[in-house]
């Protein structure tokens, strides 16, 4: 309208039609988007309100016969009538490259998780992009991990030193389980490269997948093991000789297979050894 044409834009190009209602006192204030990269007007790529929400003609100018003001063409968040892929399309029209390239095939996209399920687009501080607050966003849905990350043996996620996104790309990836690298092991090697080898003496499951033995989200067992020694080891190794012995406290006749480092009291180099010799019969990952 003529009045809107006279009203200045406050943050984004052409936002006068929106900010005449959506000021700081309204139910849906929008000016804070000015604090974000989306509100950086000098960047020619910066969107307008309608880039994301659609032209929304009837929302801006309520039809005379309408009792309630119609919603914008594209609405985000809980209760939105906009299909999830249409919500995502508004974001992907600019953000489909880079780490979001595989979004359309991701489990999140397939389960109607939208960009705004996790991101707060209008706020300067988007909790999911801050490693001190990111986990709280992810744990809203991933309840199993909520308990695990507080276990005594864990990664420093609660302290904000490791973030979920250090290992997972929630936007989808070519690797399994949205791993940021092409495999579980390649992701773990980013910080635990000493386990990579290859070694003179290798341990097959170590080379295949760290998560066969470890739960990276946290456990009550040292080294984030899924099952305690010797039971974990006895799940693969043939029951001959000392491998068939019962778990027992202390040393006794069974060896120290439960206390201290368990089977690793002797088989210290469980991830592999590069020692080419076999002095004292130590080829079994012992030195």
């Amino acid at each position: 309208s003529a009045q809107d044409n006279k009203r200045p834009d406050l943050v984004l190009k052409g936002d006068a039609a929106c900010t005449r209602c959506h000021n700081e006192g309204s139910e849906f204030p929008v000016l804070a988007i000015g604090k974000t990269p989306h509100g950086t007007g000098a960047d020619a790529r910066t969107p307008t309100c309608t880039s994301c929400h659609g032209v929304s003609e009837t929302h801006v100018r309520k039809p005379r016969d309408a009792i309630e003001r119609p919603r914008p063409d594209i609405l985000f968040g809980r209760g939105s009538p906009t299909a999830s892929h249409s919500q995502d399309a508004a974001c992907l029209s600019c953000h489909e490259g880079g780490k979001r390239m595989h979004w359309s095939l991701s489990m999140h996209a397939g389960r109607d998780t939208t960009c705004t399920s996790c991101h707060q687009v209008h706020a300067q501080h988007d909790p999911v992009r801050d490693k001190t607050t990111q986990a709280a966003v992810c744990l809203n849905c991933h309840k199993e991990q909520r308990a695990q990350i507080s276990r005594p043996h864990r990664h420093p996620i609660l302290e904000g030193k490791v973030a979920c996104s250090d290992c997972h790309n929630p936007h989808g990836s070519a690797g399994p389980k949205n791993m940021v690298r092409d495999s579980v092991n390649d992701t773990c090697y980013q910080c635990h490269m000493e386990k990579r080898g290859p070694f003179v003496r290798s341990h097959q499951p170590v080379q295949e997948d760290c998560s066969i033995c470890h739960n990276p989200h946290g456990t009550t067992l040292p080294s984030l093991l899924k099952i305690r020694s010797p039971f974990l080891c006895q799940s693969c190794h043939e029951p001959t000789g000392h491998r068939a012995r019962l778990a027992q406290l202390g040393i006794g006749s069974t060896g120290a297979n439960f206390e201290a480092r368990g089977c690793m009291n002797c088989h210290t180099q469980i991830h592999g050894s590069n020692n080419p010799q076999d002095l004292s019969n130590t080829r079994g990952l012992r030195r």
Partner: protein
Amino acid sequence: ATVRADGSTDEVSALRAPDSRVEIGGGHVDSDNGNFGKYTGLNEQGEYLLLDADINRREDDSGSWLRLRVRNAGLDSREIRIEQERQGSWSYYLEYNEIPRFEPLTVTTGVVGIGGPNLSTAGAASEVEFESKRKRLDLGLTLNSLASSKWGFSFDFRNEEKKGERIFGVGTPGGNRFNFTPEPLDSTISLIEGTFRYTDRKFQFAGGYYGTMFRNDPKALTWDYGDANLLALSPLALPPDNESHQVHVSGGYSFSPAVRGTFKAAYTLATQDDTFILPSVSGRTDLGGRIETTLLQAGISARPMPNLSITGNLRYEDRDDRTPVVQYIVPAGANNTWDGFNEPRDIETTHGKLEASYGLPGGVRAIGEVQYEKKERNTFTYRSVSHRDTTEEMTYTAALRRTMSDTLTGGISYAHADRFGSDFRQNILFNSNAAGSNVFAPLHYADRQRDKVRVSLNWFPTDPLSLQVYVDEISDRYDGDRDGSGGGPRRGEQRVFALDAGYRFSENWQGSLWYNRNEYRWENAIPGVAYDTSSNEGDSYGAGLRGRLHARLEAGVDLSYSEVEDRWNQESLSGVPVPSQLPVATTRQARLNLFGNYTLEENSGIRFDYIYDQYSTDDVTWGGWGPGGTGSYSDGTVIREPSPQKLHFVGVQYFHRFQ
């Protein structure tokens, strides 16, 4: 209000300008602790400097940003990141980040030389503090849109030094004696990545190089504690230097708004040719390790009809271990499960997935999914663990989901997976070729039937109340024996139940409650001896309250408690009673966190934090390991986990906000 040239007022300008904040103050921890401060440095009684900053400046005319983040500057977990950006053109950042890990166990030992490559026991036993600290230096450079709005380039470099000591030990091949031999940590991990990108509305492409390098020093750990049996194990090989180089391309193409395809192809060469710490009878001075990994992935998603979505994905990874096969040990006798050759590991994985999703009335979607995975692994003539060349797994999933609703969303799904594979190879013994032990199907090779049910509900019965229910149950049944003996992996179970409630009491007050029940069980058997059941059952509770007590005072409280029980039961299969059962381990953690922000002036105030943390465990990992216990290090070293641990933390910080 002042009206600016662009027609806006000071008030509007403040609402759209980035905020900055600086906090400085002090904190006090009232007691030493192993659990609370192991990753922050708040592990000792004393006073600490608390200094944090989050500075964001933008030049509106040019779109230039300067961001400075300082966190925990007064602690051992300090990190600093500075970033400059001309939005839409270029950006770079530099980051310094320390990640400490203070050993929560207390060690009293007479071992000297800890942290170095040569250990001895000349010293008197005294308490030793263990610390591994990763100093991560991230250097990032991102350049965008140099040539056009479609082309970009980014370069990332990360260098991470890890120094300190790690609890470690060695055991005798005979005599059942153990030495405490802490491992020195002095290694560097480097990651380098350069990527070209092309992005337009339909086609996105990225390609580049990703290189990693691990360097470790020292290479060997030696010790002499005067015990001939244990001395025979010295030296011990520490992790060798290794590196990898990857070239990769990936892309996505939107054939139409409803059809999109993506792909990735990558080739990685990983090598390990560090010099051996001892001579080898093979004549080699290094392994010559070489692994070539090829990844190919392609996927497509489509909406052929408004209500129908289909996705398909195929992923192939070939890990080809081309390390030379050499005899490093010459076996002295017959009937060994090994022949002295090294064993390069090839693994070829093919994974496919097809999913269809159909929109039903009421905002409900019906989802059907089929997944197939095939793994092919190599093996060697003589081995101590059973092997099959191929495992395959089919997974079928059916689900109903509802997302488009103001009041009730969620889903229910059921999945059944069937893992099977080729025949197991016969284990034979070196020299004699007699039959070896052929009893177990290893955990990740065994036939397995898996059933999985998941229910999640988000209910908003009234505007201020929200409820979430989450149930996840997995049941695994293994065919873990190869000989009908009933041995090997038998069963695995997992149950998760979570309940969350949130309530908004008023515009200024909101609260939350949550509960988690996590259960895991694992059953395995040694034929003719016993079957064992490991279980882990935990209950976790949480509550939170946030609000405004006064116009100047915002406050909150978080309370959490968890109790986890680990049980290990062994039941005899032989009729001979199990000598003694293993004790239950109970771990309890509780934390109360009170915090508040009191506004002094418009842009400044005081932040207050109080934490009470309590941790206790009767886990026997180290509990009986020492004098008077059931086992010990023969050099006299004693390791204990202090329990219970209780501490109070109080922190006060002055904060200033500005733009």
